[in-house]
């Protein structure tokens, strides 16, 4: 059963345009010109309860605009939305009790106060009982390992610590759906992994539906079962992450280490890197047989080590962008 459903969703922004220089500014003052930018065009999607969905696309593709319409922040120009049986545009307040949102770039914690104060205030904003707030804070503190951070003003927290507190804050009122808009933006590898583990736990333990936008292929690969790729405000691909990798991952990377010096001269193989006796080769499995190629490579010399791996999802997505004629989005907006 789907708990998020959008039909033919569109959002158009009016943007004032002006010619360059002072003359252009004067002209724009006398007769302002506007151009319409369609940030989201006829998007239709369904998300089932408990699903972890990746909503991906380049900058300005319309990801955030879509999330903002699904959460009631923006009013759609056209189309229908139903989130947990409610219309976000008209039932924004009712819906807010049931959803949680984290915008990586926007903080909901008070900058000068410790997270504990913000948690308590947010708990009261969501009309939770004192006892319930306490219990929830203690549960989330343990889950997110933020005990030491609770009494430190947010301004003194590192970005990774802050994001952990942000996600905890958005979960305070036990939302059924959580929208994560680029939660790992700007984080280092270790912290990114920690956040991913937390999201994974969250989805497994409480069956929370997760709607995730990210630029980071690792987020999608590790967390999501289905991915929707959007560009120029339109859905270009909607399929399982497994299929995405299978269908768009004909390239394999072979790392092979010989015990002696070898020369690789094979028309179907592309040598990516060669250092000492180690060689990194790319092979297109749709054009040549992996079995035969490996045998050929083994015959070249004594093999010490060999690994066959998939290229990172990042490259696959970038391949899809190119294939689907995707450069950049319409506008670095919303």
């Amino acid at each position, binding site marked *: 059963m789907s708990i998020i459903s959008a039909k033919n969703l569109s959002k158009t922004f009016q943007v004032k345009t002006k010619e360059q220089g002072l003359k252009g500014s004067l002209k724009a003052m006398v007769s302002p010109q506007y151009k319409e930018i369609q940030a989201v065009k006829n998007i239709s999607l369904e998300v089932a309860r408990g699903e972890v969905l990746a909503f991906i696309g380049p900058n300005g593709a319309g990801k955030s605009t879509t999330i*903002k319409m699904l*959460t009631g*922040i923006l009013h759609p120009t056209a189309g229908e939305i139903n989130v947990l049986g409610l219309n976000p545009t008209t039932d924004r*307040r009712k819906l807010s009790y049931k959803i949680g949102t984290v915008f990586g770039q926007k903080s909901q914690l008070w900058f000068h106060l410790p997270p504990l*104060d913000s948690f308590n*205030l947010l708990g009261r904003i*969501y*009309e939770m009982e004192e006892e319930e707030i306490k219990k929830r804070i203690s549960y989330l503190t343990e889950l997110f390992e933020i005990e030491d951070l609770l009494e430190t003003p947010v301004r003194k927290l590192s970005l990774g610590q802050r994001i952990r507190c942000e996600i905890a804050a958005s979960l305070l009122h036990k939302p059924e759906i959580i929208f994560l808009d680029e939660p790992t933006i700007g984080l280092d590898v270790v912290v990114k992994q920690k956040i991913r583990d937390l999201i994974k736990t969250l989805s497994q333990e409480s069956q929370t539906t997760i709607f995730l936008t990210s630029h980071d292929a690792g987020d999608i690969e590790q967390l999501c079962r289905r991915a929707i790729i959007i560009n120029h405000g339109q859905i270009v691909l909607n399929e399982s992450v497994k299929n995405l990798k299978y269908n768009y991952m004909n390239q394999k990377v072979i790392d092979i280490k010989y015990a002696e010096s070898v020369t690789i001269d094979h028309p179907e193989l592309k040598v990516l890197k060669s250092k000492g006796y180690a060689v990194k080769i790319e092979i297109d499995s749709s054009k040549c047989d992996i079995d035969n190629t490996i045998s050929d490579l083994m015959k070249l010399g004594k093999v010490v080590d060999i690994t066959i791996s998939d290229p990172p999802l990042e490259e696959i997505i970038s391949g899809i962008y190119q294939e689907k004629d995707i450069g950049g989005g319409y506008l670095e907006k919303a």
Partner: protein
Amino acid sequence: MLTEAKKNLKLIGMYFKFNLAASMEYRASFLTQTFGMVLNNSTFIFFWWILFNNVKEIGGYGFKEVMIIWGIASTSYGLTFVLFGNIRRISQMIINGELDSYLLQPKDVLINIISSSTVISAWGDIFYGLILFIGVYGFDLIGLGLFIFFCFTGMIFFASVMICANTLTFYMGDSRGITGLIFEFMITFSIYPEGIHNSYTKLIIYTLLPSAFISLVPVRLMTDFSWNWFLLLMGALVGWSVFTYWLFMKGLQKYESGNLIVSKL
């Protein structure tokens, strides 16, 4: 409707306590800003005192009346920014797309936005007005009760006009310039005797920019109470509040959000 009003009052109270705690984070700054503002405002008493040593009355007001309008205006202004400190930032918040986190919470969005921050120095304005009033009027419970009542009505007028001015950003892109002008206008025309204005100015201060209702009408009521003036004041109060709310909600539909990196201060 009554439950909604109760919920909103509770929210304002909650933020008040929360913001006070936040202000106390910087205790030295809180104290210097508060007392600095009291000192700063006090200089104007000398100006009027010297003036009234040379003339008996100005525009029908004596020294006492002028001090009372100063008292009401100052405390009204102080209350506005202590309780609704975010009013001064609405335009900028609309431009920067900072309303998102408020729209995601289950509270009235306008009350939630304006109450969520405070202006520390405005405490100085509250104390200054109160001290000034008691100083010239004497300590009288009914007088003080009326003073506090009119400071709250003044606060609603001042807040409404400032919200409307800021809300124009939804409609014209950036209203910070005009908001600054309206702010100056509202202050200026609420601290000078009514009698010095010509009829056109009076028309404006009773209609378009209702600064007369902040302090001039209350002084009239405190010196010579009339039900007609009182009902006019209350009618204007309801009218401005309803209009402000409607204008903001209508404008909110035009909100475009944004992707600027922002923190809640």
